[in-house]
């Protein structure tokens, strides 16, 4: 427990010390909200979709969490390159505890980032139903945990940042754009619906809409179950890959 706690604490300390990172990672969600929210809003409304800011906000919150989470996981490569990873690997603790502590730390940061984006959406004009806020926070944490674990699992296999661009373009971006964060799935063509239903973030975005807007495609129970099971799988795979790291 102490191992998990100290690794969690380390991630948080590093986060709070890099203010530029906190502010920097708000740029993208803000851009999506302003440019897409206000730009597409009138058309969306005319087409009978309702308030686009309300529709978009959960998607942008999920995006903020996704990016922060993947980055926190990938940060493991820094630790490997700057040598700090060795310090943890020669300590008399299990590798799974190290991996879990790191991942929980990253997931906490990503959840906080999601809350900051949430506040931002409220400022811009998002008017959610706050009755199920705890449920929304749970979904946010599950998204954060799943993707931090995914980032850690990927970083366990990489030695340097060579593959980073690849991950951004072929994993993070598709995860976001295909998740239904920006467009409604029920009116999308069938092939897109099928692809989206394979994207884990889809269930995150849908879960957030369910909790904050009480409108949902799959239902909150399905969303949380899918996210929960995937998180357990990715954590196990990540734990295994992490235990195989040789320096």
């Amino acid at each position, binding site marked *: 427990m*102490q*191992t998990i*706690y*100290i690794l969690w604490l*380390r991630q948080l*300390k*590093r986060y709070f*010390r*890099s203010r530029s990172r906190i502010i920097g990672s708000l740029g993208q969600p803000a851009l999506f909200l302003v440019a897409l929210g206000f730009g597409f809003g009138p058309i969306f409304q005319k087409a009978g979709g309702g308030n686009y800011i309300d529709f978009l906000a959960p998607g942008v919150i999920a995006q903020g969490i996704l990016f922060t989470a993947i980055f926190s996981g990938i940060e493991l490569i820094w630790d490997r390159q*700057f*040598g*700090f990873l*060795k*310090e*943890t*690997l*020669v*300590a*008399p*603790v299990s590798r799974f505890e190290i991996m879990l502590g790191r991942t929980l730390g990253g997931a906490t940061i990503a959840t906080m980032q999601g809350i900051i984006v949430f506040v931002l959406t409220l400022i811009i004009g998002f008017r959610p139903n706050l009755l199920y806020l705890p449920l929304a926070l749970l979904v946010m944490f599950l998204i954060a945990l799943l993707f931090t674990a995914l980032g850690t699992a990927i970083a366990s296999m990489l030695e340097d940042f060579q593959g980073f661009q690849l991950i951004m373009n072929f994993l993070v971006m598709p995860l976001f754009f295909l998740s239904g964060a920006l467009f409604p799935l029920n009116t999308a063509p069938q092939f897109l619906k099928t692809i989206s239903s394979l994207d884990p973030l889809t269930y995150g975005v849908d879960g957030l809409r369910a909790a904050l807007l009480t409108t949902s495609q799959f239902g909150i129970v399905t969303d949380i179950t899918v996210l929960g099971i995937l998180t357990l799988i990715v954590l196990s795979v990540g734990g295994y890959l992490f235990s195989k790291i*040789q*320096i």
Partner: protein
Amino acid sequence: MHPNQSKEIFLQVSNLTKTFNDFTAVKGISFTVNKGEIFAFLGPNGAGKSTTIKMLTTLLSPTAGEMIINGFNPVNQQDEVRKSFGIVFQDPSLDEELTAYENMEFHGALYKVKQPLRKRRIEELLTIVDLWDRRDHLVKTFSGGMRRRLEIARGLLHHPKIFFLDEPTIGLDPQTRNQIWSYIEDLNKKEGITVFFTTHYMEEAERVAQRIAIIDHGEMIAQGTADELKKQTKTETLEDAFLSLTGRAIREEEASASEHMRMRRQMFRGRSR
């Protein structure tokens, strides 16, 4: 030398081998380190020193051979071995975004050093390495010498019985090197800690180490005290002894380089024909 030192074996390595794909980095080396001894492990770059240290410290698993540290096997008694040693790695391993104190605290938590012992020990060690006044500064503001001192303090926090130092003084000025060795010699005398180190500075090894092992191309080529090695090679200094022992290998490398040249020339001729 410590005349009253017991000759109890603390670390034993026999026929240790490590192969990466088709390259053998360590070829069946054997040696022992006595309890309380300062032992230097020398060799040119790429000789297999770091690979050996990684195997001893549970970071790499050996291809063949046996290791025993403090009565435990690094392959299947990892945690017992990990509790027994402290290490200063060849390259930096501090968290630069944390303060000196936080780096110590982190280590204490990982090694489960209980409070209030942890707090007392951190203060004691940071004072020894002259960093107590800088304890709340971020490591990224520290010089190379300060970082090394902090790594030494950190490696000793959990009272290890053996201290591995992989080129601890590389890139440091003579003043800092001198200071670091006096800390380590002091600890060796006061706490009876066994020290296992590598270095490229032969005068350091000659001055500090009680026994020396020299490896090259993954093979053990000589072992003994500095005097024994000098006598064996009929040389005046350890540096000359080292060069006379490992010099042969350099000539071999030259030969293989000229072999490459020859091959390239043949290829060139073949093409122009």
